[in-house]
């Protein structure tokens, strides 16, 4: 009965590979997000989707491509992984942009 779930929880991969992170929410929310937390714990928005439409793309390299097949899912695909992509990626969801946001458990990505 997890509200916002992400898979996988840990991801270790080599530079140049392509990987995906999946996110699902069962809260009935219409807005979903991806945030990145760097090694200094700083959290920053990457993408925001409302009803499957991209609302925010915060100057993220185009190697990152989010996809929202329906309102309950927002996946993140990353091409040609770089060392600097190592971070914890959090998915979140809310009712509209002003609603309280709930976060998934995070995916720790390590690029070697």
């Amino acid at each position, binding site marked *: 009965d997890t509200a916002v779930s992400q898979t996988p929880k840990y991801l270790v991969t080599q530079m140049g590979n392509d990987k995906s992170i999946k996110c699902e929410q069962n809260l009935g929310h219409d*807005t979903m997000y991806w945030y990145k937390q760097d090694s200094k714990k700083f959290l920053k928005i990457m993408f925001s989707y*409302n009803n499957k439409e991209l609302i925010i793309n*915060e100057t993220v390299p185009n190697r990152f491509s989010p996809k929202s097949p329906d309102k309950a899912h927002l996946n993140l695909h990353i091409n040609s992984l770089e060392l600097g992509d190592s971070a914890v990626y959090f998915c979140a969801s809310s009712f509209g942009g*002003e*609603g*309280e946001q709930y976060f998934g458990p995070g995916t720790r990505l390590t690029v070697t």
Partner: protein
Amino acid sequence: GIQVEQSPPDLILQEGANSTLRCNFSDSVNNLQWFHQNPWGQLINLFYIPSGTKQNGRLSATTVATERYSLLYISSSQTTDSGVYFCAGPINQAGTALIFGKGTTLSVSS
């Protein structure tokens, strides 16, 4: 977008002590949230508080929207309160994402 500043950056307490964490924001907000990131990395919702005062057990929060700040009070702190406390406000007036402060790292020792 707004800017969110938190203070203090670090806080060390003995178990049982009280503390106040502060969050200043540069513009009016229609969404202000406090989170606790525990040592396992999980982000836990504490309060959704664009204005007013709320209480939940030993924790309470007050947002004074007209003066652009929010306070998080922790009373009778416990070792399980350790972690990083973040406040976050809307990235723009449409509120389509959150912008986070840099956090306050709290360490509570027994």
